[in-house]
């Protein structure tokens, strides 16, 4: 049994005007509202920052959030950028629910781009109809292979998967850079560090005329449904949830921690690899030194803003995608620095973590006291 109130003797000596009090029950209302509240707080902060930079906040808001989306092409871009975020975040959500902290989706995404792109480059024309499935599968396997390294080290040697997966991001990026600067460089590419363009037979078909959004978005939505089904009805999903919620209960019930780690890493790594190959076989169409503006890292925020729930992740990836688009638009039209998107992303995570605290706690005035009822009158 947890020692309840064990810190009381220490903390009651600090005289703060407000104090955090644990709620008797986590607040269901706060659980639903924390993400929208964080988004609102982020917006308010953004408007303040715009004002401080000497821009008219209302106009800036239009440039940031309205203009990018008022055309079919704009909506297509929204869905296009939401796709890798959604794919990575869905996998990460499964992993985080199991208490396995894969921080390296960006690296797994990069490796998926390399393996998928590689298969497309070297075997694409020969594969015919099987080109697209083969390239996508190669991407998934590449992401899984990269995630297998932290999974192995964690399950064998208890190495922190957080550090290993993070460090592997930079290795993957350097590997890609080496390939496109060296062996895989397009000989006809005027010395640009990029591969040959992928053949049309492996490129993902577009969904909407006049936009760049491709079939990857549909795959992401299907995976959202699948991950919901996996989490709620399969025994493996159940075991992973138990492992995440209460490791001691998992050990008590004989749930293998090692199996949970591997499953979590394979699912999140595979999904990130798929995101990578969807970029390469989608809007980019070739390998180049940078295939992602940090989707794998932004997906961590997406996973949490979506409260690790598939539906939430779908919505949060659309929001995050809008932030990317708005940031680009703000750079072009308002000459704001590129770091504006980063500021919005960071602000979102910051407010979200703050809002999460109030699910389990509430703020109270320290010395609120019901005026003591007059003595004697009561049931004495």
């Amino acid at each position, binding site marked *: *049994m*947890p*020692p*309840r*109130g*064990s*810190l*009381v*003797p*220490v903390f*009651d*000596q600090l005289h703060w005007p407000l104090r955090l009090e644990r709620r*008797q*029950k986590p607040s269901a209302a706060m659980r639903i509202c924390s993400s929208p509240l964080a988004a609102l707080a982020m917006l308010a902060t953004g408007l303040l920052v715009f004002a401080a930079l000497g821009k008219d906040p209302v106009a800036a808001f239009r440039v940031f959030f309205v203009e990018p989306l008022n055309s079919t092409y704009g909506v297509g871009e929204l869905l296009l950028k939401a796709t890798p975020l959604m794919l990575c975040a869905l996998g990460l959500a499964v992993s985080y629910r199991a208490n396995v902290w894969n921080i390296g989706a960006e690296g797994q995404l990069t490796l998926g781009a390399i393996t998928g792109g590689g298969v497309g480059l070297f075997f694409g024309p020969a594969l015919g109809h099987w080109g697209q499935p083969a390239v996508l599968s190669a991407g998934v396997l590449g992401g899984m292979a990269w995630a297998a390294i932290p999974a192995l080290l964690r399950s064998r040697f208890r190495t922190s998967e957080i550090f290993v997966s993070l460090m592997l991001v930079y290795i993957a990026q350097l590997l890609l850079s080496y390939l496109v600067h060296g062996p895989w460089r397009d000989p006809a590419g005027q010395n640009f560090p990029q591969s040959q363009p992928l053949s049309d037979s492996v490129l993902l078909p577009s969904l909407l005329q006049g936009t760049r959004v491709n079939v990857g978005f549909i795959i992401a939505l299907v995976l959202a449904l699948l991950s919901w089904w996996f989490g709620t*009805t*399969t*025994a*493996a999903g*159940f075991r992973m*949830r*138990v492992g995440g*919620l*209460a490791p*001691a*209960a998992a*050990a*008590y*019930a*004989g*749930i*293998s921690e090692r199996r949970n780690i591997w499953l979590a890493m394979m699912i999140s790594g595979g999904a990130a690899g798929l995101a990578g190959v969807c970029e390469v076989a989608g809007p980019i169409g070739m390998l180049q030194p940078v295939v992602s503006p940090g989707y794998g890292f932004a997906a961590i925020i997406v996973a949490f803003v979506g409260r690790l729930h598939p539906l939430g992740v779908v919505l949060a990836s659309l929001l995050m995608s809008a932030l990317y688009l708005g940031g680009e638009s703000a750079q072009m039209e308002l000459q704001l620095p590129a770091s504006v998107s980063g500021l919005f992303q960071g602000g979102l995570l910051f407010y979200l973590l703050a809002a999460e605290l109030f699910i389990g706690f509430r703020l109270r005035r320290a*010395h*609120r*006291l*019901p005026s*003591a*009822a*007059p*003595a*004697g*009158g*009561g*049931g*004495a």
Partner: protein
Amino acid sequence: MTTVSTPASARLALHGISKRYASVIANDRIDLKVAAGEIHALLGENGAGKSTLMKIVYGVTQPDEGSIEWEGAPVAIRSPAQARRLGIGMVFQHFSIFETLTVAENIALALNERLPAATLAARIDEVSQRYGLPIDPQRLTHGMSVGERQRVEIVRCLLQSPRLLIMDEPTSVLTPQAVQVLFETLRRLAREGVSILYISHKLDEIRELCDVATILRNGRVSGSAIPREQSNTSLGRMMVGADLKECKLEPRPPGPIRLELTNLSLDTEDPFGTSLRQINLRVRGGQIVGIAGVSGNGQKELLAAISGERLCTQRAAVRLCGQDAARLNPAQRRTLGLRFVPEERLGRGAVPGMHLADNCVLTGASAGLVRHGMVRRRAARAFARATIAEFAVKCDGELAPADSLSGGNLQKFIVGREIRLAPTVMLVAQPTWGVDVGASLLIRQALIELRNAGAAVLVISEDLDELFAICDCLAVLARGRLSDAMPTAGLAAETVGVWMTGEFQGAGAAAGVAGAGV
């Protein structure tokens, strides 16, 4: 019910204290008077409102209605710091001790004023000698037994020269001998004029120690009495509202050996844990074997070794139903018929954020709650509903989250779940710790019925009364070694108390009564 007259100048007087929470009235117009130098028992089941009332007196929470008088003057106690300034000290049931600090550092943390280290150490020495509470101020607390930790807490309170000392279930973790030492200290304090509010549900202790008892039931005062003039039955009736039934253990021929530990040695993984040394034990079908001893003497390690949460190197060190099990994981041991109720209910026996139906899935694979890799939710809900009904679990249905249940109800649920999974070997740790009297009785009775049905039951508990009430045989675990299991009939509590200190070489020979197994 006897009404007891109290002196006019009470040290503490509560008038009409009420406290409501969202769904329950924890305290309903409670009046209480504690005289100077009086040892006043506050008796009641879990959930009767004792803890809330004490939190109000100690300033942790505020009452919705009513008033408090301290030595004749009305006061509002806004915080524990203020309570301590008034002269109210409290020894919590779960000690607020930082294991990495020394005794003196721990005490310094909770004092209202800052003292130089040397002065503090001297005062600790002085207080601990005066009240027969030997502790070394420079010692690190992590190696201390529960009894020693309690001493630190008491000394911490006494340093503030309290005039009212609140003790919350202080004996739940002590050996019989340590209980006597504690009572001596409390009596001495009372003679010096300190009032003591003693919270407990152990009737024998209250009758031995306390001058006056106030009994709470469902948030109200249901009576007050002079405990010495009462019997356990009459006090129990006031506490529960009905007569207490005793568990009955009918003699029964033991069956085949179901659980066998042979020369089990296991190094602890916990730096402050206890390694197991050469443990031998046999539990037969139709038999309840109890393991007594103070927690921290290897109980955690022994449970993990039997449940499979830790594996042993020697294959035959643990045998279940005739099969070597020492290398099997908990799920594999479950397929051999082992069921386990761990000490930690939330977080180990049950997953806090999950509802009760999902918590049945946790261990319920053998009951068909998982099939072909899928969770069978309907079956899980039906299983949970049946468990709730059979074991009278108070909750909002099978979809209530596990952490919304009170400790006692969650324990009934976990015990019920494991029993309904048809154990051949049942392993239970602290079956009724912190569980109210009614629920304890139900749990003990269920364990006895399980034994009567032929299961082998192993109970590890700190509650000697409980072990004597339900066990066929008793062994003691001390410093990682296990004594021989002796038939409970004819075994004296004092003998067990001596064993608990680790003195049981030859105990087997000395108490070698015939008729082993009963």
